[in-house]
């Protein structure tokens, strides 16, 4: 059955699904009329009452709309007025609004509110205003004086949000949120992010390696792979880790009887290919009450003699459905008998974490805000370890919206008894990038133009210092689009074509790379463009380069010191190299055009950059297979493709979008990942784990290809490889198999229950 047939089948199969009467056009018309009167009431309340709290409560008495408002509360990051000025102008739409009230509670300055134009001003008008001179905006964070004051601020923001809903919907509404965010959150049924790990010392015989690519362990006889992280020395959690002797993996199995996914953490001892399962921790033991709690495990760390496991616990026994992120620490000094040592909690579901310099930094997303009443405070202020976060640790942006509150904690892993520091930041978040001194949250916001809001939290030995907020035009393809170096944040972003007319700052630089003529600035540009931004420590713009690669989008990026590399794509793949040494003046050094594109870039060894992506026919745009490329970057202004290897039977690979699924160690000269292929005759779908080495003369060489048994098919994103010494270990949700590297003959195998 080909794709077209199947798509038609899906369409046919749905035709006889009954459409509920509640959404019939007649009923919708009735609903619209009903709401029209409520909207009026709401606006009236807004003017009549100067007391925000009481007007807010009054509006809540309208039962049906209240439910919808709550939905919006959850959905609030949909857009909105990102910049104070925009907020004010949009609110100018609301002819009944009371200026002085806004000023008091939202912190929007008079100057901006008085600028608020006539009734008919729209976002269309405001956007060019806000981005007239800069593609970057930044705002500062502030702390509330008391919980009650904070309540008022939130309530006001909530009303502003509601009032501005009318301006949310426009041509471009949907592109507001980064796809990668969703990917992370949507795959919750599968354990995501699997791979291989580092930063483990302990009683094993080996020195801990810091990271694969910088692994300088002398015991070359027994090197082992570690999690493929974005930044050196900053560990990322995963579902598989090894310390050179033991392999740790989280196993997920769907339980048909309960409808839940049962998860366990396994510890397998390895000895030159032989395997022995020595411990299985049933993670269900963390569930206190099966009827009332539900746990989702995400990833874990190995740190000295600890396993640090991150999960979200949802308690739906109480009315408020409390969701919290839990951090459980197991002591594994005795590998066969792991002991639970400590559980720490923070409000909200698990977003992301890193280990840097012995501290665990954890980000959770508290979104169950309920503003019906000013108390209890826990309805809108997150807690850590059961304690409500103090006002002095809450930092909100001037343009606060009813979105989610990010809770950031730090934990000293040398004495993991309580958090070292905690901050709550009500802002838009989504994805996280962590440099060696700062945590950045970023999310795409959708207004009339696509913007990305970036919030910075500086860290040093566990002490967290929220910094500034910046809003840039365009969206980021994922966390690799960001990089901090010498205090400067470098960003590559794509600005969608439908935004460009409102952005006046398209730098005309001439030549093939850039938009050719300044006269074009007023002409509607039909194509996407790409921009490089450099921000300083205070998140203020120091330099930028815009108008890069019109019509293309950024597919991958990697930074090495003063030089940045990124790939854009339409029919061919220009690999750009950029000189970033002058933060005020980034300049393109060169570009290499080849067919296809790379989704992932990795510095392989001196002067070599590896790309993993897809080969696309330059003329027909047909997909020809996954591709490995090796670029010679010894001269960044003259990058050459040294070798290209096309995996012909391949369809796609998790490696294209999850860097942690790649096993890569240039020192060991090994690259491994899983890909999927489809049989052209039978349409059978098969997974293969494949390993490569790179030879300067011969190029990429496939060293082994391992078919992954069909039972693992449904867990295509749970397959990972690690190597220890001369042996390769491939883990799925059902088993772990060992091989001599380069051989496909299995040596030993353990099955997970």
């Amino acid at each position, binding site marked *: 059955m080909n794709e077209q047939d199947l798509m038609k089948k899906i369409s046919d199969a749905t035709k006889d699904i009954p459409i509920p009467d509640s959404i*019939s056009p007649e009923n919708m018309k009735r609903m619209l009329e009903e709401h029209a009167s409520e*909207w009026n009431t709401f606006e009236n309340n807004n003017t009549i009452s100067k007391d925000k709290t009481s007007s807010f409560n009054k509006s809540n008495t309208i039962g049906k709309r209240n439910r919808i408002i709550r939905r919006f509360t959850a959905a609030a990051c*949909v857009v909105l007025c990102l910049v104070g000025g925009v907020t004010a102008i949009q609110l100018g739409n609301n002819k009944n609004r009371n200026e002085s009230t806004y000023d008091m509670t939202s912190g929007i300055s008079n100057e901006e509110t008085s600028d608020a134009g006539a009734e008919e001003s729209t976002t269309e008008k405001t956007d060019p205003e806000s981005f007239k001179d800069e593609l970057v905006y930044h705002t500062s964070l502030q702390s509330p004086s008391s919980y009650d004051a904070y309540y008022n601020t939130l309530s006001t923001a909530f009303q502003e949000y509601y009032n501005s809903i009318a301006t949310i919907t426009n*041509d471009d*509404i949907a592109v507001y949120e980064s*796809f990668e965010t969703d990917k992370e959150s949507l795959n919750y049924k599968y354990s995501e992010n699997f791979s291989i790990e580092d930063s483990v010392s302990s009683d094993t015989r080996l020195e801990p390696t810091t990271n694969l690519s910088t692994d300088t362990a002398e015991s070359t006889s027994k090197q082992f792979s570690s999690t493929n992280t974005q930044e050196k020395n900053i560990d990322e959690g995963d579902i598989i880790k090894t310390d050179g002797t033991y392999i740790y993996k989280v196993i997920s199995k769907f339980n048909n009887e309960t409808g839940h996914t049962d998860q366990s953490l396994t510890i397998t001892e390895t000895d030159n290919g032989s395997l022995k399962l020595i411990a299985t921790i049933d993670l269900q033991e963390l569930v206190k009450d099966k009827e009332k709690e539900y746990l989702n495990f995400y990833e874990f760390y190995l740190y000295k003699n600890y396993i640090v496991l991150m999960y979200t616990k949802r308690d739906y026994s109480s009315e408020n459905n409390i969701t919290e992120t839990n951090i459980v620490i197991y002591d594994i000094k005795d590998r066969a008998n792991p002991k639970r040592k400590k559980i720490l909690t923070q409000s909200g579901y698990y977003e992301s974490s890193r280990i840097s310099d012995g501290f665990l930094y954890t980000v959770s997303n508290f979104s169950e805000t309920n503003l019906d009443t000013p108390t209890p405070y826990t309805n809108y202020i997150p807690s850590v370890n059961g304690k409500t976060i103090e006002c002095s640790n809450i930092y909100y942006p001037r343009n606060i919206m009813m979105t989610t509150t990010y809770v950031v904690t730090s934990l000293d892993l040398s004495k993991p008894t309580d958090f070292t520091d905690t901050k709550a930041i009500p802002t838009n978040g989504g994805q996280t990038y962590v440099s060696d001194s700062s945590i950045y949250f970023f999310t795409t916001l959708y207004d009339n133009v696509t913007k990305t809001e970036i919030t910075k939290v500086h860290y040093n030995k566990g002490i967290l210092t929220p910094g500034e907020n910046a809003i840039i035009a365009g969206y980021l393809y994922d966390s690799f689009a960001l990089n901090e170096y010498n205090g400067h944040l470098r960003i590559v972003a794509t600005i969608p074509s439908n935004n460009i007319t409102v952005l006046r700052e398209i730098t005309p630089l001439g030549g093939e790379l850039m938009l050719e003529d300044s006269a074009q600035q007023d002409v509607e540009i039909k194509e996407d463009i790409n921009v490089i931004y450099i921000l300083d420590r205070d998140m203020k713009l120091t330099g930028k380069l815009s108008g890069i690669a019109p019509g293309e989008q950024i597919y991958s990026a990697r930074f090495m010191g003063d030089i940045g590399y990124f790939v854009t794509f339409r029919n061919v793949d220009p690999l750009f190299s950029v000189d970033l040494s002058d933060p005020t003046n980034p300049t393109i050094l060169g570009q290499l055009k080849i067919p296809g594109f790379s989704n992932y870039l990795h510095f392989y060894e001196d002067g070599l950059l590896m790309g993993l992506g897809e080969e696309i026919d330059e003329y027909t745009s047909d997909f020809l297979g996954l591709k490995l490329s090796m670029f010679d970057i010894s001269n960044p202004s003259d990058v050459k493709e040294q070798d290209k290897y096309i995996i012909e039977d391949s369809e796609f690979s998790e490696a*294209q979008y999850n860097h942690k699924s790649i096993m890569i160690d240039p020192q060991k000269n090994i690259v491994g990942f899983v890909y999927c292929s489809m049989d052209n005759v039978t*349409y059978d779908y098969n997974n293969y784990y494949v390993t490569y080495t790179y030879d300067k003369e011969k190029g990429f060489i496939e060293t082994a290809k391992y078919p992954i048994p069909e039972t693992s098919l449904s867990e295509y994103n749970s397959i990972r490889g690690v190597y220890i010494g001369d042996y390769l270990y491939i883990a799925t949700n059902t088993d772990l198999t060992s091989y001599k590297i380069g051989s496909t003959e299995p040596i030993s195998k353990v099955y997970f229950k």
Partner: protein
Amino acid sequence: MNQEEIIAHVLLAKNGNSDSFCKLYELYYKDMYHFAYYTLGNQQDAEDVISETVLDAFKGIRNLKKPEKFKSWIFQILSTKCKRQIAVYISNREHLKENNETEQLIQDDHPYAEHLDVRKAFSKLNDNEKMIVSLMVFAGYNSRETAKILNSQEGTIRSTKSRALTKMSQYLKEEFA
């Protein structure tokens, strides 16, 4: 309704005419419902997101700059809302429960064997895959447009779609075997 009529109704709706708005809605609401139902796997939530979409769309239609784009515009609002709803599911056990109920529901309501199988196969996809396949089937977007809506890359969309459809045909093959 031809393109000119659609544009005329959009212009009327922009002036607050709910009759015109509902005429436009009538053109697409079945596809919208199928999209929401399949993406969310739950009837009640599908109805809710559609109501919310209608409310938002009606309030926001005055900002719709290209009347001829009404369909993709309203689908974009809907898919945004579905994405949000899915995010709410994430740590929510109810989703799993409801998913199972949905399967049950499908079985009870629909004796057509093959359609049933296709739907069951669809239910095996993860939420992300459902969203992408739904956008392409019900809203008729191509991979490039889908990539735009989801703010993803065409290649990723294509491979996700391909993976999703492969998963489905795999499942169908097993079922029929």
